[in-house]
């Protein structure tokens, strides 16, 4: 029994045009431009604190850019949110599960509040996705009793169950052991291939980027200068990108030596 509708909606494209965002004096995003093609997986990489999560929040419509436009299939994001034309699913870095209700209720909330299916159907769908993520034993636990990695997978389940047109991930593989991380990567790839929703992933994980990323961008100085593919990123000429992918480890770094003098 497939849970996801086979006659799926046509994948959407995302266009980001000159988006800026600053917090007080701190400019985080500066004239960022990006195009994501329908149905592809775009992986956005970059070191900690460059504004990847901020970017994703803007894309999910949780925050507004100071300047610039975001459009989905040529409809502005504001309109999309207002008219509910396209569904945007966001899987948060720390899960952001509702702590006062059980895992099952967390997953059922979207269906119940929008009155999409009856209880039997909701249960069927939830347990199918939980099985897929190897979480079937956690359905009636409270989120506070889950490990960090389990919370992430539940959050992923919540995102998938929404059957979104655009699926956004904030660091889906951080805090996971390599095996679980690999299975999450496989799952994201599988879902994208079979359901074809446009996917944007923010991650530091080069394994993820190389395996499932259709296009890969590296954020630098608040913008994305060049977009790579899994093949081209490994021979990128940009020093910043090279350093990010192959950090040199120097135990004799001058900054540390100064601690001793």
């Amino acid at each position: 029994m497939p849970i996801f509708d086979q006659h799926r909606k046509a994948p959407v494209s995302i266009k980001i045009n000159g988006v800026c965002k600053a917090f007080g004096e701190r400019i985080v995003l500066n004239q960022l431009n990006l195009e994501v093609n329908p149905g592809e997986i775009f992986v956005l990489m970059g070191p900690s604190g460059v504004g990847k999560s901020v970017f994703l929040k803007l894309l999910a419509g949780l925050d507004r850019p100071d300047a610039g436009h975001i459009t989905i299939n040529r409809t502005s994001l504001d309109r999309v949110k207002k008219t509910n034309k396209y569904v945007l699913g966001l899987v948060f870095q720390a899960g952001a599960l509702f702590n006062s209700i059980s895992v099952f209720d967390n997953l059922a909330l979207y269906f119940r509040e929008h009155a999409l299916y009856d209880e039997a159907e909701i249960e069927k769908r939830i347990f199918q996705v939980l099985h897929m993520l190897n979480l079937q034993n956690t359905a009636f636990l409270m989120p506070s009793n889950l490990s960090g990695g389990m919370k992430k997978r539940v959050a992923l389940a919540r995102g998938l169950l929404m059957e979104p047109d655009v699926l956004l991930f904030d660091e889906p593989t951080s805090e996971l052991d390599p095996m679980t991380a690999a299975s999450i990567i496989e799952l994201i790839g599988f879902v994208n291939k079979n359901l074809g929703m446009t996917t944007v992933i923010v991650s530091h994980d080069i394994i993820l980027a190389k395996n499932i990323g259709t296009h890969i961008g590296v954020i630098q100085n608040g913008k994305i200068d060049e977009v790579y593919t899994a093949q081209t990123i490994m021979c990128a000429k940009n020093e910043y990108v090279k350093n990010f992918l192959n950090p040199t480890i120097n135990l004799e770094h001058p900054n540390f030596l100064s601690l001793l003098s």
Partner: protein
Amino acid sequence: MKVLKDWQYAFVLLWQTFKELRYLPRQWQRCIEHSCNMGYKTFPIVGILSLFMGGILALQTGYSLSNLPGAQTFLGSIVGLSMCRELGPLMTAFLLTGRVGSAITAELASMSAYQEIDALKTMNLSPTRLLVMPRVLGGLLMMPLLTMFSNVLGWIGGWFVVKTVDVISIDGGTYWRSLQQFVDLDSLNDGLVKAEIFALTIILMSCSIGLRTFGGPREIGASVTSTLVQTMIAILTLDYFVTKLLL
């Protein structure tokens, strides 16, 4: 400045809650849950404090009136009216702030700090509909019951003092008769109107402050304090003006 923002947002929430009322059928169960939860938390403490409040009131006034011959026959009306017009609603409001308002702020603030509110928004679910409206209605449902309970226990507290303390020369029957004579439906009504206004203020204020908390545990604590202080000030200020209007 921040205070103004809190008030402004509380009014926005009021308006939004109003608009969300059309989704009430699906939220009805949540309203009842919140209402029961508030009642469960507040009934015992309201009872105990009201009993003492009525007793103290009877003792103080009874003692002051003891050298005015015949004045003590009005003790029932004094306790009765003070409780139902002023002390009942006011004390219930303060206890609701302490037990319920602070809890609401803490809960919503931590939901906001841990991105649960953002998660709701990405699911196209309105936080006002799911979190604020049920609490507001729950509070409005429970407050009149709590206030009536407070009034009655205050009267009983007064009666108990009248019966047991020697300085007060009247008997229980006189107390109740005087109370019945002066406490009319209008007084009870005015008290309940006040109580509902307080309840609305408490819940909206605590939701407003809670939902706009960003950061971590420290900010959550600060928000709870801010709810307590601001709501108490708001209640007393409103009390003055509402009393003036109703008199």
